[in-house]
């Protein structure tokens, strides 16, 4: 893993709101084909961190590198164009539209009618949707049903598909299983694994330790805005992570430069 270049590299990000320091000296690396769980209690700074990565907030200090090049985003749209797709809990789907229309929301393909008029190319939207859903092993019986008639898992799948279709370099998922039943939770986690297997790395923000243990390769724990520690999932236990989250333990080495963060955690 260390031989590869990280797709995303976040170095010493810092963000405060008035006197409140939300994130300080936060660094993380994300490598191709891995799922990183981002853990932490409420108010630990997880969402501030991802909002900086996805262009919602501008960091007060620190750098973000995407594929080795430094990037700054002035809007979430810029981050998306650069390949950082963020799927928030509310999924940002139009409930009244069908799956294909949601996958192509705002980027509908057009074809010419009578040589002059541009019309939405629905046939292409459906065939492309079917193709990419197939790639991700997602089966949605009727693509023409509006999203509001779909289950929570199907909606999540549509949101993920939209991210993947638009060539996401990485996907950030905020509590993807929070609103789902048990059966659907495991399906969404399977989808996260599928994404990873296809080389799209995922940052998974979750309250649910079981999700992270089930699907992540590494877990990074935040507490009070900084990085409390990092664990390779295959070499750690749930108790281990909980004690990091509640602050009972802390990694010995302060993570100033995050270049060798994986090794830091192992050491």
């Amino acid at each position, binding site marked *: 893993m260390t031989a590869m270049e990280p797709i995303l590299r976040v170095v010493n990000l810092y963000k405060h709101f008035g006197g409140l320091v939300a994130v300080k000296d936060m660094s993380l690396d994300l490598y191709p084909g891995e799922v990183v769980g981002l853990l932490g209690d409420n108010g630990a700074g997880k969402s501030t961190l991802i909002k900086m990565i996805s262009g919602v907030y501008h960091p007060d200090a620190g750098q973000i590198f995407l594929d080795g090049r430094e990037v700054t985003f002035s809007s*979430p*749209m810029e981050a*998306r164009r650069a390949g950082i797709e963020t799927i928030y809990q*509310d999924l*940002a*789907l*139009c*409930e*009244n*539209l069908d799956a294909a*229309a949601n996958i192509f*929301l*705002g*980027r*509908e393909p*057009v074809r010419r*009618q009578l040589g002059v*008029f*541009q*019309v*939405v190319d629905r046939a292409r939207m459906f065939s492309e949707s079917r193709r990419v859903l197939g790639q*991700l*092993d*997602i*089966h*949605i*019986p009727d693509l023409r*049903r509006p999203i*509001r*008639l*779909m*289950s929570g*898992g*199907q909606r999540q*799948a549509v949101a993920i598909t939209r991210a993947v279709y638009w060539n996401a370099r990485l996907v950030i998922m905020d509590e993807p299983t929070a609103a789902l039943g048990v059966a*659907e939770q495991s*399906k969404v986690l*399977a*989808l996260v694994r*599928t994404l990873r297997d296809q080389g799209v790395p995922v940052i998974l923000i979750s309250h649910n330790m079981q999700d992270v243990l089930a699907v992540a390769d590494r877990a990074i724990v935040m507490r009070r805005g900084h990085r409390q520690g990092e664990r390779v999932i295959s070499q750690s236990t749930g108790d281990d992570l909980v004690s990091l989250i509640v602050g009972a333990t802390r990694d010995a080495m302060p993570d100033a430069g995050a270049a060798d963060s994986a090794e830091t955690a192992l050491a």
Partner: protein
Amino acid sequence: MTTLEATTPATRPARNLVGVLGQFWAWLFLLTLIVFFSLTGQGFFSLFNFQSIGANMSIVLIMALGQTFVIILGGIDLSTGFVMGLATVVAAQVMVNLGNSQPLLLVVLAGLAAGAVAGLAAGTVNGLLIARLGVPPFIVTLGMLGIARGIGFLLSGGLPVSVQVQGLGQVGNGSLLYYHPQAGLSFLSPPPGLQGADLRQVVGILPHPLTLMIILVLVCHWLLSNTRFGQHTYAIGGNREAALRAGIPVQRHTIQVYMLSALLAAVAGVLYTTRFTNGAANAGDALLLDSIAAVVIGGASLFGGEGRISGTLIGALIIAVIQNGLVILAINPFWQFVAVGTVIILAVLVDQARARLVR
């Protein structure tokens, strides 16, 4: 395989039946009305009467087309009635000034252009206030209702503007084709050389208001169902935040939709001027509610995201058939208000019942 099946397949057939009935209730209702009035009303079931229903509903329906876009967007445009009235006044005054010195076509086009400019100005102000400053559409368009009303009366001095232009009435009341049993078909005017009783036998086919209405219905249907403009209208109405995050230019689109609504109201106004050869600031006052009613009866949701042009067409047809049928049955015209009001409430009840059962 990550199979994410929808649940509750057991209730499918029952739900589908209700869903289908719910979808087609408006068509069935219209059909029932037509059958009822055909059996009870002398002269209801005739080509002449159907064409006059079409011509009479044209102004309301053209206003309702724009309203459909606004309501799907999740807004409301209360100003279309008086924007329509303002356009009749502006168009009438331009036509009066050009008078008989210019060719009729030029006079009509100049009136149309002036009315359209007045409408677009009102629509642009509506759109800017709603999209840029975030003022609720109800408030903005209520304000514009008053402003357009006031300006319309100020421009016309409080009186209708009569347009004495040769042949203008023929533009708003004529037909595309005329048919006479002996003289055959002719284009735009009755076959020449017919007198008296013969002239009364001539049947007009496709009155101009009806033709204009059909064209605008088709254009709006195409715009709403086939273009990105229509797709974005549904998206913003469904989830404005999601549309924003997907990069849809929500502000610009909102402004365009209110401009479209006002433009169509203005076109309806100019049609009024050619039909009744005058302009009156309050010409559209009574039509606003009918036009909103047509959209709502057509199944559009006032919460946004749902609605179709075909629905609005049906809604307007139901209203027009009720009004026409009651007149033919010689029932006190005030009952028309009661009937249309009842149908509005009925329509929303049916939609609610359908939504409960389909979910």
